[in-house]
């Protein structure tokens, strides 16, 4: 029962979406939307597992006073602080804590956005040092990688307005739309076919690793 019922549930939900696609009439066409909403609600609850895991790890660090436990304390403090702010905002705005003007929206504007944007901006420097190592034109493949990257970078933001950079800009567009797209299409078709085969195996109960 511990394995059979989940297998039946996977089969039924998978087949229901399959049927909903081929019979786009009531009540079948509604089944897909309902099941999608169900999956979203379940994912919402699953988030709690992740939060619990994160907090448990850091609270254990604090209790054991492991190396760097002070940072775990900071993380826990800010989590609890923003969570409290969120609850107050939700009470103030009838359940919707992220309404513009709320205190949680302030946290989003002045903490979440700057922190995430700066973290990704920081990658600009590391990506440049990674590029130096990857692009050393020792082999044909590395040379191609280098040429493609340089063409796209210079083509997107021309250094100056002259015939060469105008040509490069056009060449960069052609590069993105023809050879780049061809390879990307090949990769994505391969991924999609793999996902299709795996999904069929899951629906038919051949692939069961997700139940472990």
């Amino acid at each position, binding site marked *: 029962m511990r394995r059979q019922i*989940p297998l039946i549930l*996977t089969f039924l939900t*998978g087949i229901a*979406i*399959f049927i909903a696609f081929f019979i786009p009439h009531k009540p079948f066409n509604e089944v897909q939307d309902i099941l999608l*909403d*169900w999956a979203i*609600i*379940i*994912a*919402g609850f*699953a988030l709690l597992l992740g939060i619990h895991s*994160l907090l448990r790890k850091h609270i254990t660090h604090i209790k054991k006073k492991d190396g760097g436990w002070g*940072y775990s304390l900071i*993380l826990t*403090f800010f989590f609890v602080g*923003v969570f409290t702010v969120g609850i107050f905002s939700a009470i103030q705005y009838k*359940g*919707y*804590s*992220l309404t513009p003007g709320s205190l*949680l929206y302030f946290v989003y504007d*002045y*903490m*979440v*956005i*700057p*922190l995430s944007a*700066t*973290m990704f*901006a*920081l990658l*600009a*420097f590391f990506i*440049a040092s990674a590029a130096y190592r990857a692009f050393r034109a020792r082999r044909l*493949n590395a040379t191609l*990688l*280098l*040429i*493609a990257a340089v*063409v*796209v*970078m210079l083509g997107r933001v021309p250094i100056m307005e002259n015939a060469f950079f105008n040509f490069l800009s*056009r060449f960069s*567009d*052609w*590069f*993105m739309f*023809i*050879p780049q797209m061809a*390879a990307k299409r*090949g*990769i*994505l078709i*391969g991924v999609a076919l793999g996902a*299709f085969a795996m*999904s069929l195996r899951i*629906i038919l109960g051949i692939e069961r690793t*997700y*139940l472990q």
Partner: protein
Amino acid sequence: MGQIIGVWIAAGLTLMIFSFLYKDNPFYKFAEHVYVGVSAAYTCFYTWDYFLMPKLINPLLQHHWLVIIPGIFGAMMLTRWFPRSAWVSRWPIAVSVGVASGLVVVQYMQGFVIPQIQNTLLPIAGPAVTFNNPITNLWNHPLNNLIIIVGTVTTLVYFYFSKKHKGFIGGTAKVGIIFIMVAFGASFGYTVMARISLLIGRIHFLINDWLLPLFRSLTH
């Protein structure tokens, strides 16, 4: 006043993150842990506002009792906290996996794979593929069709591992790797540009929203 405090907090956190460029230091670690803590709490309320409120709470308040079923499934997910009853969480996982698999089988094939294949089946000696972008169309040439066909097919052959890459398949795979390298290089260049534009955004914020108003207030 609230805006001024916000800008100072944002500027402080931005500088703390950028301090990592010198070396790993306590300021960076502080900001890093603040980021994780704040983002985790923010994600909880984002999920509540945009998913649980409209899809679970509001329907329940309007007496649409069907949503009790996913609510129960969601609660079953939390049984993972208790090792003896953790197996119950397989039920909601099975529903999520079933929905995702069903979508891949039909929607993904119809909405993604078939159109992509359709757009690759181009006439070699016919009209060239055209794009909405007029600049790109300056380069349109029937040879583009051939490049797209060869690029897509050879890339697919490169990822075909059921036969050894020898002879014809080996040669085709070698052409495929050329296309793959070009694609990776172009994607890399694109990513670098996106990161640099983010960096410009942060520097713009530090100068225009923080430093300039600060100097103006000091000089007045």
